[in-house]
């Protein structure tokens, strides 16, 4: 899995004085196979893009990746997208593009926690839990859900990495979270991210 949360700010090195840059987000989806990232990054390089952030994952054989690139403001984004699609279509992959606005990403001050839920799979589990998070203004920074099919009935494990704002009423939020988990038949746990880091990282 590829993941880079901090910008690899190569754009600073390649930018010429006077260049005005813009940022573009690409989404690529399709069946996983070796060489996808090589193909995408080759096209981006040839089109004069500088890669800033990449995140990639594979879910049940489906490759999904997000690229944030910077290019000269005068460059043609549509031409870039066309070049990508031409390269990726034979691989069964689809690409989408969006120009990023000038908005700053939300800078919520809070602490990072990991919430996990485990329980029998049924519709509405994530919708039910995330409703509580949204209600308390808690942002999900990473989400992973996996099935444990060896268990009877199959169990669904969801791992939410969240930022909890400092002003959050911890007792109230924890009670709401546990209450909803109980309604959904889930075993819910919330731990500070530091615990996992301390236990697992040397």
């Amino acid at each position, binding site marked *: 899995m590829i*993941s880079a949360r901090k910008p690899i700010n190569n754009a600073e090195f390649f930018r010429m004085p006077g260049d005005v840059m813009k940022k573009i987000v690409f989404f690529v989806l399709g069946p996983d196979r070796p060489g996808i990232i090589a193909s995408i990054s080759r096209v981006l390089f040839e089109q004069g893009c500088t890669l800033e952030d990449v995140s990639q994952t594979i879910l049940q054989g489906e490759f999904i990746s997000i690229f944030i690139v910077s290019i000269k403001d005068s460059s043609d984004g549509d031409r870039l997208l066309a070049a990508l699609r031409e390269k990726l279509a034979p691989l069964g992959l689809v690409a989408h593009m969006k120009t990023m606005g000038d908005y700053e990403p939300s800078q919520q001050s809070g602490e990072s926690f*990991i919430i*996990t839920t485990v329980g029998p799979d049924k519709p509405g589990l994530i919708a039910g839990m995330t409703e509580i998070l949204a209600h308390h203004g808690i942002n999900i920074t990473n989400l*992973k859900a*996996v099935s444990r099919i060896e268990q009877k009935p199959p169990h669904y*494990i969801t*791992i939410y*990495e969240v930022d909890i704002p400092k002003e959050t009423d*911890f*007792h109230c939020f*924890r009670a709401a979270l546990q209450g909803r988990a109980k309604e959904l038949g889930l075993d819910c*746990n*919330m*731990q*500070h*991210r*530091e*615990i*996992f*880091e*301390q*236990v*697992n990282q040397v």
Partner: protein
Amino acid sequence: MLTEREIIATLDMLRNENLDVRTVTLGVSLFDCASDDAGRFISNVRSKITRLAENLVDICDEIGLKYGIPVVNKRISISPVAAAAGGFSAEQMVLIAVALDDMAAQLRIDFIGGFGALVEKGMTKGDRALIDSIPEALAKTERICSSINAASTNAGINMDAVALMGRTIKQTAEATSGRDGIGCAKLVVFANIPQDVPFMAGAYLGVGEPDAVINVGVSGPGVVKMAIDRARKADPSLDLGRLSEIIKRTSFKVTRVGELIGRKVADRLGVPFGVVDLSLAPTPNVGDSVGEIFQSLGLKSIGCPGSTAALAMLNDAVKKGGIFASSHVGGLSGAFIPVSEDLNIAEAARTGRLTMEKLEAMTSVCSVGLDMVAIPGDTSAETISGIIADEMAIGVINHKATAARLIPVPGKKAGERAAFGGLLGEATILNIRDDGGSAGFIRLGGRIPAPVHSFRN
């Protein structure tokens, strides 16, 4: 970045293995409270302890909730009272103990440790006054623990102190005879006592320590037992070398959590963080037993031949993992085998699998010694001193801490039950050889010289 496997494995440890922080102990120096007036001394102590510890319980609970790791016990260790209050009489020492007990209750602290003295080379007037006050002080208080260091590798064994402590233990048992001699459950005689123990009854704040400091005792033995059980279930062919590796890794994780919580509490209190004590401290609850670890390692019971080897391996693996996890490891840092505080060990004592002699042998490789051992109430003071002297010798020669916390249960004989309640648990009274054979040796008194530090064979 955390992987889902790391997250799930950590959660298993947190949820299913009773991972907690066993104690957060605030050390408070009392040397700046000194006075020639007992009332003034008590007032100074109350003022200082209250100022430093008034939020200790709330902060521990708050951080425990935030991190999802409960802090089970919140305690205070103080400078040895015999030194900080060296000018006072035994009667005044009792007043100090009662005042400390009152402070502990007001602050909702489990125990205050440090009502003790360091007498390995000799006794001051204050040391003697404190020891003389122990029976009454421990009878009149609930939350005060007393430790007397009677020996060290550098000083040898103060046999006059050992003899005195034999008598003091008898008197303390008699003073609390209505409760099976519970006073003795809070009285321990040490060799090589560390200055930063967070666990009771040995906790005190050494003279080389800061004005205030947070020391932490990590989680109990349930985590280690479950890790061994899970590993053996997944791979029944695991040998002791690989099981030792499992224990080591578990200890690493437990220590990391303990230090994290300790540092957070220290930050909030505005005092420095001291050490993590790696000791596996059992409680009288199912699943929280050091004795059960022996069974997980294939022994029918603690006390069976092989137990000393198993304990040596356990102790060593715990230390290796913990020392890698933290640069500040201290206290006793090993496995405790307190008979009454551990359901499984108490059961081994009841069935006769665990005898006094085997316990003593095991203390040569564990972190404390003869701990919470109930003995017949009519055991003579000289025999008690003889047992203490043997235990001191093990510590002095092996350059390690050892201790004796013996409870001669008034009016009860070997095989009967003694119940102390709460964390102190209950146990069958062990049979010991008490035929007066130690008296001549103990009455000689004096100081057994320090051992040579070379030619270690």
